[in-house]
């Protein structure tokens, strides 16, 4: 068993490596291997895995990447992730990617799918639509069809059509991974001093570049090490971070929130790794199982329609209760339509339950943390004062 520091150091190295050496090494290890990149927030990674390819989560360039070319493609009022993603691609950092998936999250990523087709014609780019109708016989049928098309596209890419058995095996691998992810989240909520969010973030982020089996092992190791660790418990406030589901905040922002006296006890970073809230069925038609999970059991987030007004925003209230949180920090990327349009609705639901919140915006390359630290610090103090 390794200690948390060693595991986290390994994850941090992967996080900082914008050449994605690990992904390249995975591909080079066996001739003919394919890498399938995907943007936040959700794609059915099981299909990629079953086709023998590596799902590779691309979450922008962070605060280390200088964006030069990418800015030539975007107006100043568009968020940063599409420009840094283009930067990564035009500077050759994604040249091992054979196909790219663009999930249905917002108009920026949607349009990026078409830009990719034009700018990188050798890479198979596909927009992945997900249903906003949640009836099995309507949205479910449509989504199963979409999954079928994706399966065919991946079969063509890898030359290895995934059988139903392959898919069920992949579902099992991802179920196992999601169980561990949930365990880490639950453990952090229970004993946040032993699993700081700046660490948990890096451990989760490693799942974007590692094969699922390797990542599961890493999660298990981290969990064991964190449980065994002996770190002082502080009198911090317990908060949830909401709105950071696409362009990621800089790691420093997460650290700043913690340094300001907050334990982050839940968040919506990298929702893909806990999109399905419980196990996807491991028997029967695997595509139907994935579609069914999407409809019934997937995470609530701004890019999904909530058909029932009475349930709008309830998930956040329920999460606050489940995690024993004392407040919510809305942290959204600047110019992020889904997060910023959703925010006032969530805030009103929180207010009606007397749950305190604060809000700010960031960019993946935000450098000035002082204002955020002050705002989060004041928030943490006020929670303590009134609790």
């Amino acid at each position, binding site marked *: 068993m390794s200690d948390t520091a060693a595991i986290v150091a390994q994850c941090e190295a992967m996080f900082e490596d914008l050449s994605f050496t690990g992904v390249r090494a995975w591909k080079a290890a066996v001739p003919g291997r394919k890498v399938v990149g995907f943007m936040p927030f959700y794609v059915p990674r099981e299909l990629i895995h079953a086709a023998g390819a590596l799902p590779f989560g691309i979450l922008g360039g962070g605060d280390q990447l200088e964006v030069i070319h990418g800015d030539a493609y975007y107006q100043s009022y568009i968020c940063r992730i599409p420009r840094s993603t283009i930067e990564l691609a035009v500077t050759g950092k994604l040249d091992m990617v054979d196909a790219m998936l663009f999930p249905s999250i917002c108009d920026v990523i949607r349009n990026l799918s078409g830009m990719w087709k034009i700018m990188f014609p050798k890479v198979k780019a596909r927009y992945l639509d997900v249903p*906003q109708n949640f009836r099995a016989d309507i949205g479910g049928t449509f989504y199963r069809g979409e999954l079928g098309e994706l399966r065919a596209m991946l079969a063509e890419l890898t030359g290895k059509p995934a059988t139903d058995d392959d898919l069920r095996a992949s579902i099992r691998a991802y179920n196992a991974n999601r169980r561990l992810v949930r365990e880490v989240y639950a453990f952090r909520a229970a004993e946040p001093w032993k699993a700081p969010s700046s660490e948990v973030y890096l451990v989760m982020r490693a799942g974007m570049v590692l094969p699922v089996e390797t990542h599961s092992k890493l999660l298990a190791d981290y969990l064991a090490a964190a449980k065994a660790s002996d770190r002082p418990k502080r009198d911090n406030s317990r908060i949830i971070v909401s709105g950071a589901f696409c362009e990621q905040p800089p790691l420093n922002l997460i650290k700043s929130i913690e340094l300001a006296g907050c334990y982050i006890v839940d968040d919506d970073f990298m929702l893909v790794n806990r999109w399905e809230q419980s196990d996807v069925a491991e028997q029967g038609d695997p595509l139907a199982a994935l579609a069914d999970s999407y409809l019934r059991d997937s995470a609530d987030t701004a890019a999904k329609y909530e058909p029932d007004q009475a349930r709008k925003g309830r998930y956040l209230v329920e999460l606050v209760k489940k995690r024993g949180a004392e407040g919510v920090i809305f942290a959204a990327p600047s110019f992020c339509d889904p997060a910023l349009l959703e925010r006032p609705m969530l805030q009103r639901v929180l207010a009606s339950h007397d749950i305190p919140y604060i809000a700010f915006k960031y960019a993946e390359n935000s450098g000035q943390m002082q204002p955020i630290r002050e705002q989060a610090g004041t928030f943490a103090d006020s929670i303590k004062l009134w609790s």
Partner: protein
Amino acid sequence: MSQKPPAADVVKEPSMLKQKEMIEANYERLSGAKAQGRKVASTFVPGNLNELIMCFDLANNLPEINAIQNGMRKKSGMLIMEAEKRGHSEDVCTYVKADLGMMAKGNLGPNGKPLPEPDVLLLSYTGCFTFMKWFELVREQYKCETLMLHVPYEGEGHATKSMRDYVVKQLKEVVIPGLEKVSGVKFDIDRLRQYLRESAKAEDDFVWVLESAKRRPSPIDAYFGGVYYIGPIFTAFRGTPDATEYYRLLRQEIAARIAQGQGPITPEGDFGQEKYRLVVEGPPNWTSFRDFWKMFHDEGAVVVASTYTKVGGLYDLGFRHDPDHPLESLADYCLGCYTNRNLPSRIDLIEKYVRDYEADGLLINSIKSCNSFSAGQLLVLREIERRTGKPAAFIETDLVDPRYFSAANVKNRLESYLQMIEQKRRGASPRAAA
């Protein structure tokens, strides 16, 4: 400078008067709806199901049109600030904020009377994610029935059978039963067929009007004039005999202009000499619409084709509403709206316009509010220049937020662009610009 009669001499053509009457009547219908026991639907322009809404005798309220009306009346700035004061981000679509601000300020329509509360929000989710959040925000206030029609995006550049089946199934099992419940009116497919027959007639004339811009001089301005021409067919009138009549009148007027070799009409009279032919991508700015237009016609620049006039339906590639396949054609209509097409298809369309309309180039009006249009436009610009060899230019404004319209900036950009076109002409043929 072009020669124009003074503004006072401008005569309103019969089609203009007809449209004015139609719009006023619709606002009266809306403000009187509750007193007359009429139920009200709110819905969006792209992917609107006007024919279906009429089958249930619902009055049709279009929040985007209200925002535009408020923009043109210079009221939107205050409404947007009101919404921002209430916690809406400065970064998001100003149509949404103008609408929410209007609701907060008594929901007065352009006729000065309060608009009714909607009985149903028909959320046709075509071509833009913001629509979904917008109606969630409105629903939060009115707590009324909300019917989602999810129209998948044409990510691969075409609609598939699965997409069409999905939309039709939602129409059959969600939208129609929902509208029956709200209105108490039973759905009659023959009534729908009749409206669709009417729509197709208007669509034929509408396309004729748009394509008249292929002539030299163009008898229409397909952007600044075009936004009036799309009025009936994009809003609460498609499928009505009024709309058919409007397009018949419009076609007659334009035929007469062609016969006399005339260019477009502008708010300040006849256009004068056509010097530049442009294709424009993106919605217009509404708060300074007249000034914006004037910058073009002062320079003799006419817009011969625009993408904005395809946002509520793309008809010039051949699509027509089809009474023989009513629900399927509603699905195809929704799927084919301009911003529901992927970026390569949008570029192909613009390229076709530049060629078919013999344009001098492409001008992009990039709208701060609208990622659906704007994300990717700089690539559109490059591609069009590369493919056509014609110059392209970029201006940035907003829809209804006056804070983002800088007249001096726009004018400068436009003037340098027109100079670029001149240079290009001189390069290609020394006599062309003489």
